[in-house]
């Protein structure tokens, strides 16, 4: 029925719905200022369980994020934040979200400097190619989208169903549940309201009545018949309101109010085995589209480590040969050989070494991070991932000022 009504409306405006959302181009998450994106939510380990599903099938989006300690002043702290997902509207329905293992259907309070692990289950609803991102929305701070990957939905939207079982034992389809009551109630009142308008419109309305009014013949303007009809309409109106109210209480005796309030959430435990990183200086080479960083690294872990990856704003620069296989990840967000390290031998436990790192890729430009030079706060940040020879990973966030270089080096 829902679809039927929808179609009627669309036909009424002459085939307005000729093109389904078949191919969605891209996202819009690049709009936020670079320093905000590089210093707020650091997404990592993002995974999509599949890139092709049929209508009614599920995709699982999972991963982790770290809330950067350099959190910009311009955005509110994540004291109230919602673990969200960025897709173009309800092309999927979200069947569940878990953060650190807890169901997260509402907002929660997140701690800066800590890590969180999420799992989002999405059920395919409308066919097409859709970009699917994790997203953390911070109250008064806005959305912060993670990396996005294309997921193709195949099949027919008309086949979609969304059953949910209530605590009163009914299984209802959320696509249509309650709609016939809404529609019938609106039609009923539209008929009564329409009747009252037509009752007066069929007679001279404005000038004619105004003349009689000014001639002192007000009594003729509201006739005894009008009063009778009005009285009948009033009684009918009140009777229908009471009927509607009490019959519904009778039909649905058990109801609950809308649920609200923050959910409880604890961050993931802090890593014990840390590799410390301190930024000494950083330059952005605009013509070369690369960032040169000098960092002091202190290996606090128990085994030697090498730098494998630099990641910020969902873009990953890899030190080939050190970083393990990254798995499926959006190609435009990854620079497989984009990371150069001047002293690439393992850093021994307890050793402090100064590394000169160069991260180069067109992504600085295409993802608009290069526009950092127009930002009011020229800082950047990110995460460094170190690996020991067994593949064990140590991650560390860092950040600080970034100086642009306008001439070719």
């Amino acid at each position, binding site marked *: 029925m*829902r679809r039927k*009504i*929808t179609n009627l*409306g*669309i036909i009424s*405006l002459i085939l*307005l*719905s000729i093109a389904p959302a078949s191919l969605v181009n891209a996202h819009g998450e690049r709009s936020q200022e670079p320093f905000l994106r590089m210093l707020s939510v650091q997404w990592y380990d993002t995974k999509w369980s599949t890139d092709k599903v049929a209508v009614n099938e599920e995709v699982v989006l999972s991963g982790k994020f770290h809330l950067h300690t350099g959190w910009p002043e311009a955005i509110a702290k994540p004291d*109230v*934040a*919602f673990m*969200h997902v960025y*897709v173009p*509207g*309800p092309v999927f329905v979200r069947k569940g979200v878990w953060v650190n293992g807890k*169901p997260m*259907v509402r*907002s929660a309070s997140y701690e800066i400097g800590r890590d969180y692990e999420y799992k989002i289950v999405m059920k395919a609803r*409308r066919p097409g190619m859709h970009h699917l991102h994790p997203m953390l*929305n911070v*109250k008064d701070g806005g*959305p912060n989208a993670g990396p996005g990957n294309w997921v193709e939905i195949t099949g027919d939207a008309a086949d979609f169903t969304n059953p*949910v079982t*209530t*605590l*009163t034992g009914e299984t209802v389809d*959320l*696509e*249509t*549940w*309650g*709609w016939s009551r809404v529609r019938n109630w*609106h039609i009923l009142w539209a008929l*009564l*309201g329409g009747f*009252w308008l037509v009752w*007066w419109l069929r007679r*001279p309305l*404005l*000038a004619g*009545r*105004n003349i009689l*009014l000014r001639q002192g013949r007000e009594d003729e303007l*509201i006739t005894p018949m009008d009063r009778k009809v*009005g*009285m009948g*309409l009033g009684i009918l*109106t009140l009777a229908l*309101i009471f009927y*509607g*109210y009490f019959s*519904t209480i009778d*039909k*649905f005796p058990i*109801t*609950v*109010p*809308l649920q*609200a309030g923050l*959910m409880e959430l604890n961050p993931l435990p802090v890593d014990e085995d840390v590799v410390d990183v301190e930024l000494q200086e950083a330059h952005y080479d605009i013509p070369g589209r690369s960032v040169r960083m000098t960092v002091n690294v202190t290996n606090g872990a128990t085994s030697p480590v090498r730098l494998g990856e630099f990641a910020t704003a969902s873009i990953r620069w890899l030190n080939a040969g050190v970083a393990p296989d990254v798995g499926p990840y959006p190609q435009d967000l990854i620079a497989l050989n984009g990371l150069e390290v001047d002293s690439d031998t393992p850093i021994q436990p307890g050793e402090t070494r100064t590394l000169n790192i160069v991260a180069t890729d067109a992504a600085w430009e295409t993802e608009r991070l290069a526009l950092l030079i127009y930002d009011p706060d020229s800082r950047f940040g990110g995460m460094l991932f170190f690996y020991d020879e067994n593949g064990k990973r140590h991650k560390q966030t860092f950040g600080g000022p970034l100086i642009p270089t306008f001439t070719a080096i």
Partner: protein
Amino acid sequence: MRTVAPGVDSYAEAYRVHRAFDYILVFIFITLLTGIHHLHAMLSVGDWTFWTDWKDRRWWLFVIPLSSLVFPVVGQYILWQHCRVPFGATLMVVCLLLGQWIDRVNNFAGWVYYPLNFVWPGTLLPSAIILDLVLMFTNSYVLTAVLGAWSWGILFYPSQWYMLGAFHLPVDYHGVLMSIADVQGFEYIRTGTPEYIRIIEKGTLRTFGQDVTPVSAFFCAFACILVYFVFNQFAKLVASVKFIKGRI
């Protein structure tokens, strides 16, 4: 004494002019009011009209009647004061609903694909009919404000429950208690509208939890009386027939 030369010479012609005036005005007012009343409602309380998971016991049933009373008050004043036509409020609400429904069907469902059972508006037609009848029977704005506007507010919630009740069945959702409306809001993704944007009841300060609805409706009805008085005065401004002498 007549001051203006006539442009017609029979009752029949005069009648035709007056009726033509009526009909074009019906068109003008339906299009105008569908537009601006809708704009007013949408940008003052729109979120509560859009989504089932905003239709709560505290804010929805307070802000919707309050905001939606502004236009009916003005409509009643203009039509009753000058022509004794008693359908100002009903006309305003019919125009509002017309606008809302065309839009829900074409845009919310037809363009961004929300199911209609998630995006339906409430209806103030029951309240509007009563408001118009009170003015017609009392022929007094004071009594209409006190009796009519009060009824307008108090009748809102009971006149919606026929539609809303089905959306308040409880659901065990991964171990969290939610109403069906909450589940709709969670599952049918509003990308630009995260959950914390919702302005709904989060509980009372005392043990009045069970009586939230009547308390809110009762306060709303009182506030509606005040709105009626204020916008009845505003109606005088917009119904002015003044010509100002001089140049711009």
